[in-house]
């Protein structure tokens, strides 16, 4: 047993972090926010070239041939950097959907009852089967063209400025069946958990940085226990979520993935909340990045596997 990152995994993580810092650092991120850019097609292709989407495709099929643990490291970095776009769906569609692996296609996801993120920019739609994560086995997903679905869809004013949402009618006709093994929902949940982990770790850093720099009452606010203990709680949440997410990536066990999603959702939302509290009034401004983490964390909590469904999976596992 060696439950630590391998040298290759560390190198992979460092590479993605560097790529995102260069291509989607804070200035570009805020510029994209101001411009209302959802998916930047050029960046999407660069992500494709970097193997973001083809990561788990076999090398024989033009992929990188890596596994879920490596994918989790990538999506953790995406969560840290607030990278927008339907990354998970496009990653899951790599292979079956033409162009997804290369970042030529943008693939969004349709999960019944949920608004569709980035429908306006998507080429194709992954339609999840009705498996609800509560023991009902997941049915095979299908693929549809985005354009036809968009015709009967209405844009929603999204709470997350980086994630445009569309409300769609339930799809009447079936799409193309996907030659996958019915694990899309659980894999999606795991990758969303990885994004949440990245966000939770990032807001911890932001809170610590602010607490060390901001002075009130003649001292850095981080020297007051009230602030100090908020930050400590954030680290604990992020680190426990990290172990849950990494282990779930190694085992790919649906129960472990449910636990990872539950803890990572919790860590992302509560850490963003605490980060905002540590930032005080400054955290309440649009200028601050804290709210971008919080809003995305809220959205992700409702996607792929909700807390209620995850808790039922985890309870069912006890018997």
């Amino acid at each position, binding site marked *: *047993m*060696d*439950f*630590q*990152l*391998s040298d290759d*995994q560390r190198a992979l993580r460092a590479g993605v972090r560097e790529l995102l810092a260069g291509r989607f650092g804070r200035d570009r991120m805020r510029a994209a926010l101001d411009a209302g850019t959802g998916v930047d097609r050029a960046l999407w292709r660069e992500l494709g070239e970097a193997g973001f989407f083809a990561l788990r495709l076999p090398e024989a099929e033009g992929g990188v041939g890596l596994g879920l*643990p490596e994918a989790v490291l990538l999506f953790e970095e995406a969560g840290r950097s607030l990278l927008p776009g339907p990354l998970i769906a496009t990653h899951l569609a790599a292979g079956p959907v033409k162009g997804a692996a290369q970042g030529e296609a943008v693939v969004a996801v349709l999960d019944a009852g949920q608004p569709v993120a980035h429908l306006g920019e998507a080429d194709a739609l992954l339609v999840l089967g009705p498996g609800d994560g509560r023991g009902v086995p997941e049915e095979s997903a299908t693929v549809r063209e985005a354009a036809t679905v968009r015709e009967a869809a209405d844009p929603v004013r999204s709470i997350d400025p980086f994630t445009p949402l569309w409300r769609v009618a339930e799809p009447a006709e079936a799409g193309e069946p996907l030659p996958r093994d019915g694990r899309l929902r659980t894999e999606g949940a795991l990758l969303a958990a990885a994004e949440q982990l990245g966000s939770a770790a990032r807001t*911890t850093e932001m809170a*610590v940085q602010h*607490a*060390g720099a901001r002075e009130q009452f003649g*001292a*850095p606010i*981080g*020297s*007051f*226990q009230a*602030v*100090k*203990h908020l*930050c*400590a*709680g954030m*680290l*604990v949440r992020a*680190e*426990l*979520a*990290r*172990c*849950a997410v*990494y*282990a779930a*990536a*190694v*085992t790919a066990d649906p*129960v*472990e993935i*449910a*636990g*990872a999603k*539950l*803890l990572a959702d919790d860590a992302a939302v509560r850490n963003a909340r605490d980060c905002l509290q540590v930032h005080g009034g400054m955290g309440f401004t649009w200028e601050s990045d804290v709210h971008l983490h919080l809003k995305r964390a809220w959205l992700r909590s409702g996607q792929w596997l909700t807390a*209620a469904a*995850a*808790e*039922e*999976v*985890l*309870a*069912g*596992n*006890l*018997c």
Partner: protein
Amino acid sequence: MDLAYTEEEQEFRARLRAWLATVLPALPAKPAPDDWPGRRAYDTAWQRALYDAGYAGLHWPVDAGGRGATPTQHLIFLEETERAGAPYVGANFVGLLHAGPTIAAEGTAEQRARWLPPVLRGDEIWCQGFSEPEAGSDLAALRTRAVRDGDHYVVSGSKIWTSHAEVADWCELLVRTDPAAPRHRGISWLAMEMDAPGVTVRPLRTLAGSTEFAEMFLDEVRVPVSHRVGAENDGWRVTMVTLSFERGTAFVGEVVACRRTLAALAAEARRNGRWDDPVLRRGLGRLNAEFRALWRLTQWNVSEAQRAGSGGVPGTGGSVFKLRYSHARQELYEAAAEVLGADSADLDREWALDRLSSLSYTIAAGTSQIQRNIVAERILGLPKGR
């Protein structure tokens, strides 16, 4: 990220499991909680059995008489013994997990030869005399005085929260040898014989009604200077070196036990019908996520220690674990009370006493408040102070 055990680790596990299957059925009945001589005999017999089978001092360095096992082997050992229902380290705790390692790291050759073998064989029992009534979270405020008198120290003061004091042979004692020095600089580490004149032990009743702990009153107890480990006034460093290097294994058995308890709670809830309450059921599901993750965090910390080699890892990582674990375990027994309903008031029902004992988890061995300070200052680098 590799959760698979190596072939060597799997063999170690298989051997251990086979041995446990042989010896456990032959164990005598467990003594009553207040039968101290019986408990000592039971615990030391188990230690002797471990010694004979080559498992004693598994994590100790070889040159201290240990087996030099890796952190992962130690994790496997603790996991398997807990799973199999083997006796807990019990009365051997301080000797094996604190005083012994301290002597191994800081003692002279003579001290190691005198004290280590009896610990490994289960011949001698140690207890710990660190905490004092006036120095709880603030351990360095300890007041027990040791005054040099020729080749002895004369020790007076009082200690509290001493487990197994009633049956221990030795006590690892922190005393103040230089009252004029800064708090952390005037402390020495002594090995005190428990039958020395002037040592009085008084059982301390906890809110659970039991007497797991004792108070210890020291009235001019004479301790030979040769029983000091490390330099005079260097006792704080001596003991912190041992405390601050752990290998992530501190709570392995406890996490295994919590997961077993959680499954038993689910079974009981199914039996008594409370499983149909989604609030309760989903709460148990959430605890399942907590303890699964705490198990993974344990494996993470152990793997980190394994990579760090013999030095182990700084104990700060342990603060992250302890913070979450102690709260999760308290929540576990609150969930147990929900499952039991009105029966939770019955002390003879399973988990009722555990619920009471669990109240100490956020206090003992560093309160959650102190742990949060450690995490914030030593891991996150926030400024000390206030």
